[in-house]
């Protein structure tokens, strides 16, 4: 090695380069991952163009350009050739049975973008692609081609209004019938043992039968009125229809009450497409899922994830902080405390699914079962707390993230200057007063670090949740307007599980893939947001306790 390169190594430059390369690669990987998720996740809301492909074998396909790829095959000379192919989403699953097709590029004769090709987003069976022939609004029939789209949109909003009204009336009807149903149920229960009734039960049965007759008479009038209203509304609703013709020439009649959205992508300019993008994004964030979680929104999952994280934080921070305070301030430092500290640290290495199984065995079966025995025995054998729910899932995750909080809090406590602690004691404070007034406030940055780490870990774990209370589709949310407002025994939806479910367990994998990316992006965004919030709090506290080294 000559002088110059010897000097180069001695100065330490290569190590600067090496370490900066390491940083660059790490940073690069993170940014690359984020970029992929960002582009694929956000890109799906942009309306794609609708193309009509006439193939060489005289088939016509109308659909959204979805993907392109390469097909590898042998040609007549037994050579391996690569050919381009295009994937088209042709929808219309109720008519043809599948939504996506691949066409080899060389089979394409022409590809055009017909102006008035329309996309109907439906509440069942996915999208329908076709051309509007005729719009039927109650008694009006519209066939004028220039009016078709606008009238169809009008029809859709009218149909939705009607549907809401219908739902309200149906609810009224149910409320009316509830007391009658209750009596009838009791009667049928008693009738089951009709040969073995005691005197009391027989009397009760007669009483109930009398009540039943009275009630039936009294509600007869309003009942008939409501039933009429319902049937007229239903008729009207079903009369809003649209005649559509698909690319193959098949005509179909579609009810507007099933249409969620209608748009003509080839007619929309940039402005129109942007509005559509925002609408789609908004539906994603605030709507309910449809089509086996492959379409619609993920709002229940967002809600479930955030509520679970908050519940977990409420559970883990007090326990973690108190444990760390005891280990550091009260316990006599010796072999026992070393062992305890070691055990707590090792908890961090246990696979998360083991926590899930512990949660199932201990929290759900033992604790939940006991709670059911004592408080909800009238509902048995249907379990209330003896089955998975948001409370048990949050508790399990709190256990999972406990070691992280304990370790971070301990570091925060150790960073409190001894001089401050001595000063507090010299002023006559008891040990607990010193801890409460001097140690804990000073250790707050460390505690918040622990919380940040706990949130990041907890929000992303899926395995333990699957066993302790997450479901694919939850009928209610764990927080609503019915007393007692917090329903901690309910099952919930979770973004991480949603990704798994949509990506691997959905019947329509092709349609699901974009959803996976956007949900992943959303989960990352939520965790980043929660972290930023905690970091902001921590920075403000750090400025206050300048001397703290954390």
């Amino acid at each position, binding site marked *: 090695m000559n002088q110059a390169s010897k000097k180069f190594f001695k100065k330490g430059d290569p190590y600067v380069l090496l370490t900066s390369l390491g940083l660059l690669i790490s940073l690069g990987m993170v940014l690359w991952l984020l970029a992929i998720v960002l582009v694929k996740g956000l890109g799906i809301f942009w309306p794609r163009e609708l193309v009509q492909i006439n193939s060489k074998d005289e088939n016509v396909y109308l659909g959204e350009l979805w993907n392109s790829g390469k097909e590898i095959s042998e040609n007549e000379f037994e050579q391996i050739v690569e050919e381009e192919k295009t994937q088209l989403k042709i929808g219309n699953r109720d008519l043809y049975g599948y939504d996506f097709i691949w066409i080899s590029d060389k089979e394409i004769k022409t590809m055009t973008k017909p102006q008035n090709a329309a996309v109907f987003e439906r509440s069942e069976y996915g999208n329908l692609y076709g051309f509007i022939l005729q719009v039927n609004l109650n008694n009006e029939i519209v066939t004028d081609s220039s009016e078709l789209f606008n009238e169809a949109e009008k029809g859709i909003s009218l149909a939705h209004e009607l549907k809401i009204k219908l739902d309200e009336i149906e609810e009224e009807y149910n409320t009316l019938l509830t007391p009658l149903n209750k009596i009838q149920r009791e009667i049928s229960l008693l009738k089951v043992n009709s040969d073995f009734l005691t005197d009391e039960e027989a009397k009760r049965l007669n009483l109930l039968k009398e009540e039943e007759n009275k009630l039936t008479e009294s509600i007869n009038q309003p009942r008939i009125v409501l039933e009429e209203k319902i049937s007229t509304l239903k008729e009207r609703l079903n009369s809003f229809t649209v005649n559509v013709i698909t690319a193959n020439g098949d005509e179909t009649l579609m009810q507007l009450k099933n249409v969620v959205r209608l748009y003509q992508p080839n007619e929309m300019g940039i402005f129109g497409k942007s509005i559509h993008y925002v609408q789609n994004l908004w539906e994603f964030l605030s709507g309910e899922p449809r089509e086996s979680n492959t379409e619609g929104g993920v709002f229940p999952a967002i809600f479930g994830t955030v509520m679970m994280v908050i519940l977990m934080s409420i559970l883990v921070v007090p326990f973690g902080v108190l444990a760390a305070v005891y280990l550091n301030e009260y316990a006599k*430092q010796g072999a026992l405390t070393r062992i305890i500290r070691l055990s707590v640290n090792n908890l961090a290495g246990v696979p998360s699914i083991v926590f899930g199984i512990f949660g199932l065995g201990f929290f759900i079966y033992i604790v939940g079962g006991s709670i059911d025995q004592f408080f909800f025995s009238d509902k048995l054998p249907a379990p209330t707390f003896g089955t998975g729910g948001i409370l048990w899932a949050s508790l399990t995750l709190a256990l999972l993230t406990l070691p992280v909080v304990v370790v971070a809090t301990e570091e925060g406590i150790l960073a409190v*200057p001894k*001089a*401050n602690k*001595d*000063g*507090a*004691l*010299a*002023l*006559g*404070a*008891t040990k607990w*007063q010193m801890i409460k*007034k*001097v140690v804990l*406030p*000073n250790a707050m940055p460390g505690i918040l670090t622990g919380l940040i780490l706990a949130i990041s870990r907890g929000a992303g774990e899926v395995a333990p949740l699957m066993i302790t209370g997450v479901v694919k589709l939850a009928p209610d949310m764990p927080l609503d307007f019915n007393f007692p407002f917090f329903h901690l025994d309910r099952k919930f939806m979770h973004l991480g599980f949603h990704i798994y479910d949509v990506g691997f367990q959905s019947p329509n994998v092709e349609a699901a893939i974009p959803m996976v990316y956007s949900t992943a992006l959303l989960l990352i965004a939520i965790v980043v947001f929660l972290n930023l919030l905690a970091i902001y709090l921590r920075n403000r506290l750090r400025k*206050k*306790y*300048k*001397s*703290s080294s954390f």
Partner: protein
Amino acid sequence: MAINISTAISRETVSELLNENIVIQTNNLSLYYTPEKSALKNVNIQIPEKKVTAFIGPSGCGKSTLLRNFNRMNDLIPGIKIEGKILINGKNIYDPDVELEDLRKRVGMVFQKSNPFPMSIWENIAFGPKVNGLSNKKDIDEIVEESLRQADLWKEVKERLNESALDLSGGQQQRLCIARALANKPEIILMDEPASALDPISTGKIEETIDELRNNYTIVIVTHNMQQAARISDYTAFMMVGELVEFNDTNTLFTHPDKKLTEEYITGRFG
């Protein structure tokens, strides 16, 4: 109170001390960090009321250790062993029925390096009264003002009581710590080298404060600075290697000390 005649105290001083009220008295006090390492050996000392008593001696002679015994701060050191008695106002402070927090309220301490809490100035001073049960804001306000005046800091900070105490200069922070100790209205104030980390001007201010406090409080001050001891104290104790060598009124100790060791120390022949 009977005066413990130990060889450290000269006859003249004994007669002086008989006229004083003794607030702190140690009887054969010995302290061991570990069974082999002793820090104090058989110390018998009397601290008179409302006077300034200085402890001087070379590094490691045990003066800080002795000082920290008076408010039982040494209890915090694990493994420590204490023999003998410390009587404050006639009561042995190691008696089981002595309440530790009450003792520390009556015996305040100022540390070598100022240690203000990272709170506002007001909160710092209010800390003592609050932990001892006071909660009325007006009462505490009065205490805060009184303590800051006594520590000669009121005029400088009265406009910014809600600002962080960490923003004060070094000298101001130390005076804040003095005010904080005064807020508990103690009888005795222990000062462990309070001015050693400060510049001469701030040191002068601290010495002025001590001068103003001497009429109302018993002050025991540990100092490395013999000139400071000579300037401000009424009585001086000279210690070496954990033993009390001489205890005398300051003038006598610095002009014609009893013991040869003392003379060698103050004339600078060693330590």
